[in-house]
Each structure stands twice: as C-alpha cells, then as structure tokens.
C-alpha cells in the first residue's frame, strides 16, 4: 500500500475505533470535550521549570488510555510526525537559556534543558489528550459538542467539511502520484519539475470534486448544518467522568504527585 493509502487507512481505523461500543465512547461528547479542553489549559499553565508538577499530569492520559482500552504504541505510531515536530520546537532552548539550575558534579542542568523537557512533556500530554478525545468520539459528535458550546455554526460546518474533504483530497493525491510514478519507472519520488503541474492539477481536481460533493449534499436536503448523530442527551452519569477528573487534576496542580511522594519518602514537609 502506498504511503497515502496507509495514511487514509489510519484515518479510517481511528474513525472505526471512535465508533466502537465501549464505555468511554458512550460518554456524552460534551463531557469529553470539556474535560480535554480543561486538561490542556491546566497542563499548559504550568511554569516552564515546574517539571515535578507537570509530571503529575501524566496520570490522566495514562489512566484514560487504560480505561478506553487504547494502545499507547498505536498512539505513538500515529502521532510520530507531530511528536517529532514538537521535539524540534524546543531544541533551541538550551542555547538561549543557560541559567544553571542544578549541578551534579561537573554536569550542570541549565534552565534551557529543563524548559525544553517541560515543553516536550506539555506537548506530548496535550497531543495525547486530544488523541484520546478523537479515538473515543467520532468527529460528528465532537462537532455536535462544539455547537452545544455555542461555537458558530459556520466554523463547525467548516471543520466537518475539511475533515470530510481531507480523505478525498488524499485519495486524489494518491491517484495523481500513482499516475505519475507509473510513467516514471525507476524514479524515486516526484521530480521537482513536476511539482508545480501536479499541485495545480490536484488543486483543480479537488476543487471540482468538492463542488460535486457539495451538490450531492444539497440534493439531499443539506442547508448548511450537519445534523447530530448522537442519540442521547446529557445525563448525570455523563458528568461523573469529567467532574471526577477535574477534581483530581486541580488537586494535582495544587499538590504535585511527585513532590508529595518525595516529601513522603524524605519526611521533609517544610
């Protein structure tokens, strides 16, 4: 299978996983969305040197992944491109921030190294929290939750359409690439001279295809808003999961797990 084919297959698999009949998938999308946003905001709010506090935040993705029966290895594999980008983002910190924070003999830990690690941890935790939401909630339901939060209709519809067109665009890119490679035997990748015409062709075809797709939607009563497929309204049991976690996360923010454990071990409470 081509790389584009594999990418489409990954999207489809993730979509299927999100539709499985599991306990976590059945929680109301609004609860899961609010909890994810809360977790992300809280994680990002840690100081760039507060590694101990930040480390405690691993508790939510770790437990939620187990509860949702999701594979961490699959998540790492699917998110490897994002994680690589994140790793690159903080790489310059040690060069700019050289304030010494800790010393182990000859080895000095600078503020730059700590902030780089903290940036990486923040990114990994937040990306995993977002993955957790996507892997347990179909995109339609996430959009439905966004509408419940009064996000403008146009934005939500746009998000859903982009998601729909993404697969189509990738399929089109796959077809164009295959057609090129079949007539360029022995060549690795696409020659830079063909990039312009291929990109142009793909853009035109995609625009054309998007137009037909939109017509097809219009002919089936589409008036600018996707109807929710989620079947039940918000129940008290849907609130237990987010409220429970929100309380735990606030406690972790106030009393970082690592610090508490450290104090327990050393007996130093001052």
């Amino acid at each position, binding site marked *: 299978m081509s790389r584009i084919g594999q990418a*489409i297959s990954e999207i*489809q698999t993730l*979509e*299927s996983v999100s*539709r499985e009949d599991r306990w976590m998938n059945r929680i109301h999308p609004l609860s899961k969305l609010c909890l994810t946003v809360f977790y992300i905001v809280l994680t990002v709010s840690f100081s760039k040197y507060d590694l101990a506090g930040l480390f405690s935040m691993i508790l939510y993705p770790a437990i939620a992944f187990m509860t949702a029966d999701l594979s961490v290895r699959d998540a790492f594999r699917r998110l490897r491109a994002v994680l690589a980008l994140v790793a690159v983002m903080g790489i310059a910190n040690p060069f700019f921030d050289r304030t010494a924070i800790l010393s182990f003999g000859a080895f000095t830990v600078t503020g730059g190294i700590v902030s780089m690690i903290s940036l990486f941890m923040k990114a990994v935790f937040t990306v995993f929290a977002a993955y957790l939401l996507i892997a347990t909630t*179909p*995109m*339609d339901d996430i959009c439905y939750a966004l509408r419940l939060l009064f996000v403008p209709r146009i934005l939500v519809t746009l998000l859903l359409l982009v998601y*729909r067109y993404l*697969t*189509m665009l990738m*399929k089109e890119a796959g077809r164009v690439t295959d057609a090129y490679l079949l007539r360029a035997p022995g060549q690795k990748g696409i020659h830079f001279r063909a990039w312009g015409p291929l990109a142009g062709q793909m853009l035109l075809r995609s625009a054309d*295809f998007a137009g*037909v*797709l939109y*017509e*097809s*939607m*219009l*002919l*089936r*009563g*589409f*008036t600018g808003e996707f*109807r929710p*497929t989620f*079947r039940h309204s918000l129940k008290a049991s849907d609130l237990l999961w987010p409220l429970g976690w929100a309380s735990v996360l606030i406690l972790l923010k106030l009393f970082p797990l690592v610090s508490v454990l450290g104090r327990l071990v050393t007996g130093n409470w001052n």
Partner: protein
Amino acid sequence: MNDLMIESRDLRFAYEKGTDVLTDVSFSLAEGEKVGLIGRNGAGKSTLLKLLVGLELPNTGTLRIRGIPVERKTLSEIRRMIGYVFQDSDSQLFMTTVEEDVAFAPRNYGFSEEEVEKRVTDALEKVRIPHLRKKSVYKLSGGEKKLASLATILSMTPDIILLDEPTVTLDPGNRSNLIRLLNGLDCSLFIASHDLDFIWDTCSRVLILSEGRIVCEGPSEEILRNGDLLRKNGLELPLSLIQRDRCK
C-alpha cells in the same frame, strides 16, 4: 400513469453565452414510467439531469416537476421529490459509514430518529446490502458503492429517481442486481446512459439526445432495434439484441 412527473418545454441551456448545450428540449415523464436518455459522449445527458434537479437553471423554456416550475425559490420542494444518483459514487458517499450516509437525507429533512432508523433499514434491505450498514464507505467495492449510493436516495422515498450512467463501474453480477432492483421500484425513473443493453432491460421508452437536441423518442422496442438511427447518433445496437438475432 397519467400524472406528469416531468414536463419540459423548449428548454434551452448554455454554460457560456452563444454555445448552447441543450436546444429546444421538450419531453415528459409520466408517473411510474421508466425512460432512458441515450446519446453519445458530450450530447448533454448529464447537463439535462442537472437541470431537472436545479443544479443548473434553464436559460429559456419551462421545466416542471409534478407541476411545480423549477426555479430558485422552489428548489427545496423539487429536491424532496427527486433523487439523483451521480455517475461517480465517490461524489455521493461522503459520510464515514454506509448507515450514516443513508441517514443523511432523512436527518436533514427533520425526521424523528425512529423514522430515520426505519428508512435506513428499508433502503438497505431494498438494495440488499443490510450487512454493509456499519461498513466504512472507503472500504466498499465499486458495486457496493453504487448500491449504497442508490440506498442514500431511496431513504428519501423520492417520486422520481435520476440515474447518470449507473453501470459504468459495475461487473456483470452487480449490473444484473441493479437491473432487478430498478425494475422492482414503483417510482418514475429517468436513466441517462450509453449502455443500451441496460436501457433495454430497464426502460419502456427512450429519448435520443444528440448535440443538445432530442432527435427521436419512442418505445424502447422500436428505437433500440433501429440500427441506422442508433449509428447515426454515435450508438450501436444493444449486444443482447444482436446475439438474439444471430441465434434466430
């Protein structure tokens, strides 16, 4: 069979000024009637179908669906009565699973969830693909996609179904399935195709479109046996008829 479902009088349409794609097109379709629209590539078949559902509006002439003129203000009413099966099923299927795609129209028309569920089940059973209900649209074969596309239209329970080149991606088995299925439907059918064997098997009346004009219309039995007329319009006798004549 007396109520007119489609009534077209002197229809004229051009994408660009001065180059008419359709010229003085007049025809009608009665309730429950199954009519084939045949013609060579570029004759204007798909354009005519687009006019019927209001994706394009005629420059001059009148077009009525169940007596309602096709105008911008009547489009939503018209589109509730007509289902359009696109030539390329990928254009028709855009939701993630077959079930969601089939439920798309009933949900948009504001039916209750129970009614949506019933319509989805009925439509999938009619096209004999209830087992594909939860399957991802992306993983369907060409034949399955065509049947799923038809199900997305049947869930609207339309009065008229327009089909644009329905057999293009089908293998013989799926083609036969589609013929059996279409022959079992009560609604009116208007099928644009140059698969004349398919038209022979499904339609009682045929229109020939050539260079944007309807050059001939009549019973399938008469038109599809007229080799000279068909050849003149870039078509050939249906293979099944040629074989039948050879056997005789």
